[in-house]
Every structure is written in C-alpha cells, then in structure tokens.
C-alpha cells in the first residue's frame, strides 16, 4: 500500500460563544507517499482547521472531531495524548502561515532548532547544536554560524520561514503540512521557499500537504488538488484534471480570479463571501454566489459526481 494518510468523513465542530461552528463537514481525501496534495479555498472555508486536526492541534475541550484520520492504519482521533506526542514532529509536522509569530520571540533561532533535537532525540547540548547548525545550512541560511545566535526579530520573514521549515523537518517527518506557508511573504521570497520545499520533498521523499488560497502555488507544487468551500470538498482530482477540466463553478471562479488563470488578462472576482458555518446547510453552500445556480441547488445537498477516474466534484449543474 502506498497510501500514507487516509481521511474519511472527517467532521470538525467548534463550540463558540455564538454557537456550534461546523468548520469541516465530512471530508475525504488520501495522500500517497512522496506526493503533494494541495488544499485550496478562500479564507474561512475550513482548510486550516482540516489540516490542524491531522495533528490534533485544536483545543480539545472546545472541539469535536468525528470520522477517520488513518495514518498508516491507525486512527489519529483515537490516540492518547501521549501517543499523539510520538506522531507530532516525527511522523507529521507543520509550517504555519506567519513565521514572525511561529517562533519563540526570545530564544535564539539556533537554540530553537536544537531544542527539538534535545526534546525528541535526547541529544546532549553540544550534539544538538551541531545538528541545528547543519540544518540551518541545509535550508539555505547564511552565514549559519552567525544566524544561529540571532533572535527572530533580527531576521527577515523569508529567513524566519526557512528556520521554521528547518524545525519542521528536523525529525524527518513523513508528512509536512504547509499551512499558507508562503502567504505572509512577498513574491520573490515565496518562490525561494517553494523551491526549498520542492527540494526537500525530492531529497527526503516527504509527502506534502500544501494549504493555500493561491492557485499559482498549487500549480507549481501539487500532484492532486482538493478545492474546499464551506467545510466541504467541492472538487478533487489530479492537478492536471483540475486545471484543464475544472467541473465545479467554484473551481472555475477561483481559477479565473488568479492572474495566470484569468482569460483575456482580466481578473474576475467572486461576488459575496463564504457563508458562516453555524447551521448545517440544506442546499449547496456555494448557491448564493454561483453563476449557474438553479432552484434545486438550494433545496438539496449536491452529491459527489465522478468526472473521470479519481476526479470528483460536488455539483448538480456542471458545465
């Protein structure tokens, strides 16, 4: 079996002061070894919630997860907190959106990398420092010896994201989750970070999950793509299928709202905003913003249809 991660019928609810938020509403996908999955969608459609639940990073008292997250046959949702510690960092780890805040502000960056070695590999201080320095060089931080002793505020965003990546790959995880890892960086730096990730994937044979709202990033990185909207996957398929033959109106709208996907050089924005997720939807969540919407879209939840092979979409009126 080549499947590393298999998520089926995953639902994530949050208890909030305004009621229950159904952030993820029954999501299925699988990730093969060495492959890259892109999860695309607007802000607030449940992408981050989805990937955070793979590492169970939600506040447990206020979160309810159901379904299966099978990691090499074990359901992550059933593991004890202690067993979870063995998964995090070692089997799967995560890069967060804003590198400025995902490092501890008052510890030297070298020490922060060394800390993972000391915590998880029980290395001595000296060994850990050596490993950390080697890792700093690997992710392209120069001059590594000097940077080792600097604090996060002394480094640029791109440099910091390299440090975060260094920590995330320090224990050689099988899955690396990049949650909007390039969103806070400017375009040139973004390219460098993506190249670094690609290089790591090739060298380490890691599987990647790339969460983004940017179709450009997905086009560059991913083997398969899941388009998410309002807590559900709207369309899922290989990168080629999604780009060449987008079936869901939302996918098409997203693609034509990016510079590379816009036809005739004109960017088209999608009117309206994603719905709030307090109530379970009765019809298609995209209905109010959809150009193809019909009466029946509002009345019943569209089922998953198959376009070809693995390519599926959730729409009753595809074009």
């Amino acid at each position, binding site marked *: 079996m080549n499947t590393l991660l298999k998520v089926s019928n995953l639902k994530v609810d949050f208890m909030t002061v305004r009621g229950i938020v159904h952030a993820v509403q029954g999501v299925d996908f699988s990730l093969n070894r060495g492959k890259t999955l892109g999860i695309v969608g607007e802000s607030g459609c449940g992408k981050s919630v989805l990937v955070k639940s793979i*590492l169970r*990073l939600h506040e447990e*008292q206020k979160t309810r997860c159901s379904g299966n997250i099978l990691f090499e046959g074990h359901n992550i949702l059933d593991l004890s907190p202690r067993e*979870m*510690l*063995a*998964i*995090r*960092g*070692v089997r799967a*780890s*995560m890069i*967060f959106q*804003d590198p400025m*805040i*995902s*490092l*501890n*502000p*008052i*510890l030297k960056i070298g020490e922060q990398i060394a*800390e*993972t070695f000391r*915590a*998880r590999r029980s290395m001595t201080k000296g060994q850990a420092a050596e490993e950390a320095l080697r890792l700093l060089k690997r992710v392209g931080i120069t*001059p590594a010896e*000097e940077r080792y*002793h*600097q604090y996060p505020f*002394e480094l640029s965003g791109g440099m910091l994201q390299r440090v*975060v990546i260094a*920590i*995330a790959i*320090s*224990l050689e995880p099988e899955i690396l989750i990049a949650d909007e890892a390039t969103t806070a960086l400017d375009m040139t730096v973004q390219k460098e970070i993506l190249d670094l990730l690609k290089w790591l994937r090739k060298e380490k044979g890691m599987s990647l999950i790339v969460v983004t709202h940017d179709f450009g990033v997905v086009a560059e990185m991913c083997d398969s793509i899941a388009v998410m909207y309002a807590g559900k996957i709207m369309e899922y398929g290989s990168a080629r299928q999604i780009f060449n033959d987008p079936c869901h109106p939302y996918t098409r709208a997203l693609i034509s709202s990016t510079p590379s996907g816009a036809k005739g050089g004109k960017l088209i924005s999608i009117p309206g905003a994603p719905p709030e997720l307090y109530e379970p939807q009765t019809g298609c969540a995209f209905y109010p913003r959809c150009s193809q919407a019909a009466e029946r879209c509002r009345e019943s939840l569209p089922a998953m249809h198959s376009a070809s092979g693995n390519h599926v979409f959730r729409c009753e009126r595809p074009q």
Partner: protein
Amino acid sequence: MSRRKNNVGTLFTPTVLAASVVFLLILFCTVCAGLLAPYDPEAIDLSSAFSGPSPEHLFGADNIGRDVLSRLLYGGRTSITNALLVVLVSVLGGVPLGLLCGYYGGWLDSLVMRVWDVILSIPALLFGFILVAMLGRGSAASVLALGIAYIPMISRLARNLTSVEKTKTYVTAAKSFGFSDARIIFRQILPNCTSTLFAELTVDIGYAIITLASLSYLGLGVQPPTSDWGMMLQEGLVNLRQMPFLVVAPGIAIVLTIVSLNIVSDGIQAYLDPEQRKLPSFRRYEKKKHK
C-alpha cells in the same frame, strides 16, 4: 556582513547609575557588616547612651548605648536577606502553580484562583499575622508567612501571562513539533514571562522589606537581641522625643534601599525593551562611531 548587535544605548542612564551605585553600596555594606561595623551591634555601653554623632559613634548611640551604625549594618543584613527569602518562597510556590493554572485552565485554575481571591482580600500584613499566630513568632516564621502571603499575587501574574502566551502561534508550533506540555510550559512560555515576573519581584522585595519591618515593629518578626531595620524603628519610636535620629536612620535606610532597587529594576525593564531603551542623540552616536 558583520553581525549587528543591539548594543546602541545604555542601561546606565545617570539615574539608573546613581541608583545602582546606592543599592550596591547598601548591599556591600550590609553583606560585609562584620568587617565594616565599628562595634558589636549588641554591645551595651550605657555611658554613651543617646550620644549624638561623634568620632567614636558616627551615627550616635541608642538608648542603651549601642552603636547605631553597627546596628544599621547588621540590621540591614537581616532585613535584606529575609526579604530575598520571602520572594524566593513566593516564587517557588507561586510561579509553577501559576504556569500550570494558566496553561491548563479548567477546574484546577478556577479552584486555585478562587482560593487566591479569598487570600488577596486579606491584606498581606494581616495574613502574615494569622500565619505568624499559627507558626509562632520569629524570623523564620515571619519570612515563611510573608512568602506564603505573596504567593497569590505572583501566581496570579504568572497565570495571566501564561494564558496570554499559550494562545500565541509559537506555542501551537511547539505543540506541532511534539514537545511535551512540561517542556512547552517551562522552556517556551516561562522565558517569555520572566521579564514581567522579574519586575514584579523587585517591587516585591521592596514590599517585603517594609512588611517585615512592620512585623518586627509589632514584635512578631525577628526577636531581640537580633535586629533588623523594622526592629530599630520600633525601638527608636520609644525614644522619639529624646533622639529622633534613632527612627530616621533605619527609615532612611529602608527608603534608600527600596527606591534604588525600584529605579534599577525600572531601568532594566526599559533597557530590555528596544522601544523604551534610552538611546544616545544622533550627534553623540556619530561622534563615537568616528573615533
């Protein structure tokens, strides 16, 4: 490319410099009381009772002829040591508890914080009385009592700082690397709280000196013939009319210690914060650089 250190500006602004000189001087004098004191602080010499400042007794002598300078030095040693011990007790008890409450929240947090609410509604001095009544008089008991009385404040501060820190992304990130809770609490969150805790602690040292003095003044703290500044205040008060200096001397010592300590602590705070640090003028900086 050379590494830029953030070494522009100085901790020692004139005020901080003066205050640290004063504080270190006090510390030095009291630590070396044995060497510096001209007399045994408990030696009674009735012939020089109530004598004002003179070459033999620089600060004069008290009602039974004990040398005031010597007593100030030895008393300061007791006062400062005890104050530090009070703070140590409150840190050891309060900080770990506060960190745990802040990080885990839930029933532990509610329970501990409600108990603290009750204790905080009683003034520290009064709470000290209660504990001294239970533990007995004396220096060790009063130190322990005050240390316990200060635990609620420290642990509440640590708890609030922790509950703010734990929502930050670096904590989630640390979790995602698989760090244990203990490691996250003590190695990631605690270092981010230390500068604020440190500020509170220096203030507390000042409070502890005053409150210990009050306890001694009321006869609940150190017991004669040992003496601290509070004790000297108490003894001096009896003879306030004959010789006000017997009250003024330990009073000034207490004030100088606390004020200088607070100025130094504020200075350190300001220095550690790049936004607040006192920076040199452009002209001065450039002149220095060209040298």
